[in-house]
């Protein structure tokens, strides 16, 4: 599936497009299919997100949305070397999920 991500303009936090707005949790990301470009342009113009882009993802065996690229998986959870600072979903996915 194709999902959208970016950073919140004000705080910089990593966010994922959930169909109506931007969520901090990758599991909320929805498949946008052909609409990617249109949503990105609209949301960036409205300054609800900064530097957004589309990326590929799958739903893994445990039902989590799993971005295809390791970089986006690191973004989804936080620095692997500072697990104390992780996005709360890290507990659900576990760190092995990143690598």
């Amino acid at each position: 599936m194709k999902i959208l991500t970016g950073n919140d303009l004000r705080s910089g936090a990593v966010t994922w497009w959930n169909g109506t707005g931007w969520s901090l949790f990758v599991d909320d990301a929805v498949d946008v299919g052909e609409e990617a470009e249109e949503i990105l342009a609209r949301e960036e113009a409205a300054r609800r997100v900064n530097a957004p882009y589309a990326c590929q993802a799958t739903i893994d065996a445990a039902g989590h949305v799993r971005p295809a690229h390791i970089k986006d998986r690191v973004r989804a959870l936080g620095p692997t070397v500072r697990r104390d600072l992780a996005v709360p979903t890290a507990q659900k996915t576990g760190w092995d999920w990143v690598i």
Partner: protein
Amino acid sequence: MYRYDSYDQAMVDARVAEFRDQARRRLEGKLTEDQFKPLRLTNGLYLQLHAYMLRVAIPYGTLDSRQMAMLATIADKYDRGYGHFTTRQNIQYNWIKLEDCADALADLATVEMHAIQTSGNCIRNISSDHFAGAAADEVVDPRPYAELMRQWSSFHPEFTYLPRKFKIAVIASEKDRAAMRLHDIGVRIVKRDGEVGAQFYAGGGMGRTPMVAPLIRDFVPIDQFITYAEACLRVYNRYGRRDNKYKARIKILVHELGAAEYIRQVEEEFAHLLSVGVEPPREELARIAEYFALPPFRHPSESWDLEQLQSKVAGDPSFRWDDGFGQWVRQNTHPHKAPGYVSAVISLKPAGGIPGDATSDQMRVVARLAKEYSFDELRVMHTQNLLLPHVRIADLPAVWAALDAAGLGSANMDTIEDIIACPGLDYCSLANARSIPLAQRISERFAQSGRTELVGELKLKISGCINACGHHHAGHIGILGVDKKGKENFQLSLGGSEAEDVSLAKITGPGFDEDGVIAAVETVTEVYLASRTEGERFLDTYRRIGMEPFKEALYG
């Protein structure tokens, strides 16, 4: 140390106001991200993997306790309680909010600090020898010259949109502790017949095409110092490549023109600029130099030498000479120009830790120690450690005890545990692979096996991508993270050095996965231990025996 006068302060304050206005226009939608990006970048604000990242300059690596305490405050108030000290004598905060950034910069400005030109295609923070002003072997203190350059390069009207970033290092001894020849311009302050002048190197750098800067002028009279630098920059601004950002650094220009032709053009421009008159008045250097006068060291009779130290602590179980304390003194202190004093390295490389990271509490401990024991002076080292430049030998036990209690007492300067590692894929949006976990595992492994001391001086440097922020080209052992079909992979290289015996490391062969590269590091150290002759460092052995024996052991 240099202190701002009302002019310097007004410049920094004006910049904070300007940035506040720019951030407002961005948040109000008057600026697009494309337009805002270069503006935030000249104020050191990046967008990284997880958040905005703010890079604060520590000019020529020198700061005082008040400034260090403010760095701690910034970490607590606007970030998550820590910061990352970098190879360019800066500090990076990883979690700054755009809406807070101007406030953080305003707080920094109250202690004469800023994030000006810590990014973007401009002249970056001027770096220097971390032992400047203390080293026994320096010709003069290089920092007044670096400060003169700081002022010249700040908000330079002509050089804010260079083809690419521009990094300058200024040193003043034969020994090179600042990777001087791996900078766009490297300056060595020298004395000839009693006259101070500057030796200029140009066109060094790391990144994807590492190059060692050639000498371009052996002696620039010191009252033409800025004029010459201006000539170097103007030729680069006019003729550096702008068609391809990977070929835009000055090293490519110098390489493509040839050093002789670049020199010819610079000399022509230099002659012209001398006639225009762009040099600051002579008195300015003298004014700056006064701030760097030596601190009032105590008479040698009021301190000890290292032998006396050893005998004084003999019998005190908290300061064992054959263990923690003695090891730290032997490994982490450096000869000082004043008798009875040393410079003491504060390692930010605990075994298993994140190279260069310090918590706000640690920063406050360091600030307090600087105030009490080092004439209120601190340094940030390009090795991502901190330094107390002027410590009385008699105070070393107290200093070490405080450092040790704060987790800052590792006795591992220039050993295989003293790893330089860039943020890598844990933080950096350009990364291919994670650098930090590798550094953690390698330092832990060597610390546990007790081989660190046996292996001796060994500079291991790790970058998470070809940009080489972790100086891997200059590592005795270098590791470069690459992307292999979506998996992290690591290339090993050997034989680099950033010191006066500068050289670029060579790749050993095919890359490794994470476990593989850690094993490979162990393998090459074993080859070294088996082959070394008396007194040889890893690098010396490599240079003597060449790549083959290492390759043989690695790939069979």
